[in-house]
């Protein structure tokens, strides 16, 4: 059976994301792991694009790849990580990790494999002028406006809390007083002196010394 173009693209992206996700946890170098995570996000965005969820797909790239992972890399690159230390507790944690992974896999099979939720249903194809973004925005700001706003406030609180927990004011810290810097006028720093022109050649060395003084 000949596969349709979309199916081929789906399997391509799916294989890429599985591979990238595996490399995230198997890569020895943390920077490589972070970059594989970027690859995983990009291929997931491709899969979402196939589902006509272009807003989610582009936002995934914009927010996670374009901002969050940049900061991740920023931190990971600056850390001095010893690989021995990283692998120290591996065998102690592997059981717990495997149990967690098994649970997640079971949940996914339970949800996706059930005939009530997904099997045998085909998503409706929309016309080319259908805007997923507009529909999402309309729903978010009408039917779901309270949950949306509450989620936003919770995130804001989390952000404020994170900053408050990690911010330490140092006693010896120095900072720029920007308003003072901006308020400086030319007259405060510079004094222009008017003086008559001098003919050095005629007056000789004595007067040059006088000028220097």
């Amino acid at each position: 059976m000949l596969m349709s173009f979309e199916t081929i693209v789906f399997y391509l992206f799916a294989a890429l994301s599985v591979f990238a996700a595996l490399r995230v946890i198997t890569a020895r170098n943390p920077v490589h792991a972070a970059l594989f995570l970027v690859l995983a996000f990009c291929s997931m965005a491709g899969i979402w694009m196939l589902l006509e969820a272009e807003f989610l797909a582009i936002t995934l790239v914009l927010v996670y790849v374009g901002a969050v992972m940049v900061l991740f890399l920023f931190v990971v690159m600056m850390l001095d990580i010893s690989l021995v230390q990283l692998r120290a507790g591996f065998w102690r944690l592997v059981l717990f990790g495997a149990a967690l992974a098994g649970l997640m896999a079971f949940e996914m099979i339970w949800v996706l494999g059930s005939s009530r939720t997904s099997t045998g249903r085909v998503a409706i194809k929309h016309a080319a002028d259908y805007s997923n973004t507009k529909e999402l925005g309309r729903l978010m700001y009408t039917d779901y406006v309270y949950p949306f706003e509450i989620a936003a406030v919770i995130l804001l609180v989390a952000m404020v809390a994170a900053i408050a927990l990690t911010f330490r004011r140092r006693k010896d810290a120095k900072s720029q007083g920007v308003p003072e810097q901006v308020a400086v006028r030319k007259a405060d720093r510079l004094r222009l002196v008017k003086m008559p022109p001098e003919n050095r050649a005629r007056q000789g060395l004595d007067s040059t010394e006088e000028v220097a003084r």
Partner: protein
Amino acid sequence: MMELLQTLHQAGLGLFGPLWLTVWTLVKIVAIVAPLMVGVAYLTLAERKVIGYMQVRIGPNRVGPYGLLQPIADGLKLVFKEIIIPTGSNKFLFVIAPIMALMPALAAWAVIPFDVGMSAANVNAGLLYVLAMTSLGVYGVIIAGWASNSKYAFLGALRSAAQIVSYEIAMGFALVCVLMVSQSMNLGDIVRGQQGGAGLFGWYFIPLFPMFLVYLIAGVAETNRAPFDVAEGESEIVAGFHVEYSGMAFALFFLAEYANMILIAALTSTMFLGGWLPPFNMAPFTWVPGLFWLLAKMSFVLFLFLWFRATFPRYRYDQLMRLGWKVFIPLTLVWVVVVGAWMQTRYWLW
């Protein structure tokens, strides 16, 4: 024009059958990328000439008439140079970084409308797509800085990462204002929203003037251009992220920077300066094709880029961060509210 395209489509369908869509897309890509590369080459010459005249010099004038063949000579020189891969560097990432820098600069062109209905892809979420693509450009810089295994390159990469993430927020909010006013994320519809009898008074740079400035300045910062070129900072960290690069690998970073400049110029023209629309809705102006107007506006914005570089000294790093976080982001946030309120009154004319 439309009939010509129709016959072309018919002929193509007959010739290639189901593959015609692929062929036609490739044709469109070449039609965008080839002039873009020529534009990049001559933008480097324009930069040297413009800055030369601003500093009372002549600029390059030896290769060809008026130095017009200088970019080609530069390109040839770079092609024939050896690409040196430093010892202790990460070879794969070192090689892939320049590609990562150039890729988003080219990919974002897919949604830019050049004239009525003239764009490689008519995407509904075009504005988001552009924002996502321009935010990917930083990876080239970060990966280059890290893979080089050099302190200077790494410092440049860190500076660039912090700077681009900071200015992206202001840039995004400026675009939110455009989106509110035009009520569309399709770049073609954004240009159509600026159409009207008033000519250039209907363009969005008038109601969104602060956002226009913020977008332009954030664009300069996003492309790592002077006075925001702390990622290179040749007097502080020699050449920043590309200090270890030579030959064509270095040239790719250069291409990416200039392609990004042209992209920001195209986006500024599309969103704030009316894209392909003529400045006055009168006879002699409407005869000129829209592509000319877009290119004229882009050239103006690009001239601003060169002018900035010749005029302003480099920002100190803390000043740069302050401008991004404490000036631009509050300003854009306030303007989103102002525009939102203004649009509800009857004094909204756009």
